[in-house]
């Protein structure tokens, strides 16, 4: 039986798709057969971030509507064994997502995959609701910034009331926080909410802290999940987060400013 994870946030632009791509890749790297599904119907982007945009023929909506078979729509990643992408439609709208249709596709996927990762669109409309409805685990992507934190709290409320697990009175969806775009230097200056502040407000366990990093843009430029950039702090932080998700005990890195040598201080270089 596969586990269904939703990567969600409420607010847009906080790093859901970047995190979905990285997380799915991380799970596959550890040997789990993983599929990542784009739920952002009409605003397809996971394909670009994963670097498979030119291989999309059929999509999630085609499968829901019976216009294509699941195997025709699934794209196998060229770099990583065990990793598949189910892109969404760029022309349809979110009404194309029906609960029955989504359920049918998830049931079929769960026969084959260890993990099904649902990349939620922003907002709390149909697309976002469908992406979280069947979830067993939720990863809440949050930036250390007021509007993102508030929207995350809102989406936690939605998970607790409108997910399948909530509606059927089952064990609740597990919720973990992924704090992204964290800048320890600004935190030290008192210009940014601390990890502990966000944890205190949202009151859910911390899965990982991803530092603000230029590697994220570089990776998306070339269609490579940032977790594959093992020289970058962001890539390492995602790798740690995947390990923690799987139950490993890993210390949090990159939460305090990195000590700068005399040379870089003289040059006023920032990492």
């Amino acid at each position, binding site marked *: 039986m596969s586990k269904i994870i939703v990567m969600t946030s409420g607010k847009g632009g906080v790093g859901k798709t970047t995190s979905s791509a990285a997380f799915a890749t991380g799970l596959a790297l550890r040997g789990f057969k993983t599929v990542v599904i784009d739920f952002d119907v009409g605003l397809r982007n996971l394909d670009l971030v994963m670097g498979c945009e030119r291989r999309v023929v059929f999509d999630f909506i085609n499968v829901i509507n019976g216009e294509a078979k699941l195997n025709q729509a699934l794209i196998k990643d060229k770099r990583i064994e065990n990793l598949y992408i189910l892109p969404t439609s760029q022309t349809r709208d979110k009404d194309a997502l029906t609960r029955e249709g989504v359920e049918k596709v998830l049931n079929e996927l769960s026969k084959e995959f260890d993990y099904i990762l649902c990349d939620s669109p922003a907002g709390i409309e149909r697309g976002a609701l469908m992406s979280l409805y069947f979830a067993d685990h939720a990863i809440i992507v949050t930036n250390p*910034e*007021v509007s993102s*934190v*508030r929207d995350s*709290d*809102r989406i936690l*409320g939605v998970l607790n*009331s409108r997910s399948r697990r*909530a*509606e059927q009175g089952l064990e609740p969806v597990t919720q973990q926080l992924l704090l992204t775009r964290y800048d320890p230097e600004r*935190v030290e*200056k*008192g*210009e*940014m*909410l*601390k990890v502990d*502040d966000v944890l*205190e*407000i949202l009151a859910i366990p911390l899965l990982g802290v991803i530092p603000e990093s230029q590697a994220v843009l570089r990776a998306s430029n070339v269609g490579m999940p940032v977790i594959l950039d093992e020289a970058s702090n962001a890539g390492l932080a995602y790798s740690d987060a995947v390990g923690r998700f799987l139950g490993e005990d890993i210390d949090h890195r990159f939460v305090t400013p990195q000590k700068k040598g005399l040379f870089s201080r003289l040059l006023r270089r920032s990492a």
Partner: protein
Amino acid sequence: MSIFNFFRAAPRASAVQAKERLQIVMAHERAGRSGPDYLPMLQQELLAVIAKYVNIDENKVEVKLDRGGDCSTLEVNIELPAREQAKAASAAKPAADKPGNDHAAAKRSVGGSVGNAGAKKRI
């Protein structure tokens, strides 16, 4: 940087303000979320009925739902105006309620509770 700045108290960090503002707004939002959907409507309709008879301040009404294991209570607290104001109101409104207590209490409150045993409503 001037040496005098060194002794000056640092301005309050903006991150501290962010945290405080979030805590306040979210406490409010969470309280609103934990009630069932019909509470705001119920509150408005109750108010409309009472306002027909008594001059009340809309901000001095509290509707609260407490849910226990097999019994829920709905509590409605309405603060009535002081007696002078009440008099003015009853003059203006033909079917005004006459409060039984004539003490010059500055504030009066009507409390009511409705128990509905076994009520189950998912929120």
